[in-house]
């Protein structure tokens, strides 16, 4: 099943990049896709626990929610930068996490970093180290809405 997703994604990528539909070029595309599939299979043997990211509808909703958050915090940070007094108060602290699967943790850490104002500096077994430009940013993370939404995705 996983190879099906990879094949579809690779074929889509080829068609977008080439933009030609001549049989010869589509044949080259099929050749490249199968070559990459062979390499992916070999890589799975080297990597004992191949990660699997199943595309699902909830992810779209999460990304839309995340974009809204990113826009809000971008505006906040832009205000701080143009303020002559530079009102930042950096904190560097630990944030306990409850999501366990590697995929969910990756998504969580990346979402935190993607939001301007908060930055994941280290990922540990049960907590992250977060650098934030203001105490409000870290309070919002402690509130845990982002983590609840990721937990609901069931990755």
């Amino acid at each position, binding site marked *: 099943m996983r190879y099906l997703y990879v094949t579809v994604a690779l074929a889509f990528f080829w068609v977008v990049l080439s933009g030609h539909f001549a049989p010869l070029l589509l044949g080259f595309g099929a050749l490249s896709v199968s070559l990459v599939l062979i390499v992916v299979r070999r890589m799975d043997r080297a990597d004992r626990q191949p990660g699997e990211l199943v595309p699902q509808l909830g992810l779209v909703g999460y990304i839309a929610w995340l974009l809204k958050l990113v826009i809000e915090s971008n505006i906040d940070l832009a205000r701080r930068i143009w303020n002559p007094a530079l009102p930042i*108060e950096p904190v560097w602290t630990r944030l306990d996490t409850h999501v366990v699967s590697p995929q969910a943790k990756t998504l969580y850490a990346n979402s935190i970093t993607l939001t301007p104002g908060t930055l994941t500096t280290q990922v540990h077994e049960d907590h992250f180290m977060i650098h934030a430009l203001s105490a409000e940013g870290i309070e919002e993370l402690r509130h845990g809405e982002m983590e609840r939404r990721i937990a609901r995705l069931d990755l």
Partner: protein
Amino acid sequence: MLTAAIIAIIVTMMLALIRAFQGPTEYDRMLAANAFGTKTVLLIAIGGHALSWHSHLDVALLYAMVNFVGTIAVMRFFESRADGDCGEEGGTL
């Protein structure tokens, strides 16, 4: 309007270059270089459209990939060095 966007991108690239030359740590320089690379991707995409180049978007996509891999590679190299060198110590603002 595209011209204004191009000018804004070039100004940002200049600011990033100033940071890259000032340092003070090597990490700052790498951060500025990474920001510079992302701006280059935007410059190729928008400038190429304004000058009606062909296949500029493929170049931009490739540049984005090279920029990312380059940043990761240099940071891995910094991390693997035994003695990290950081000019400034932590403290209070």
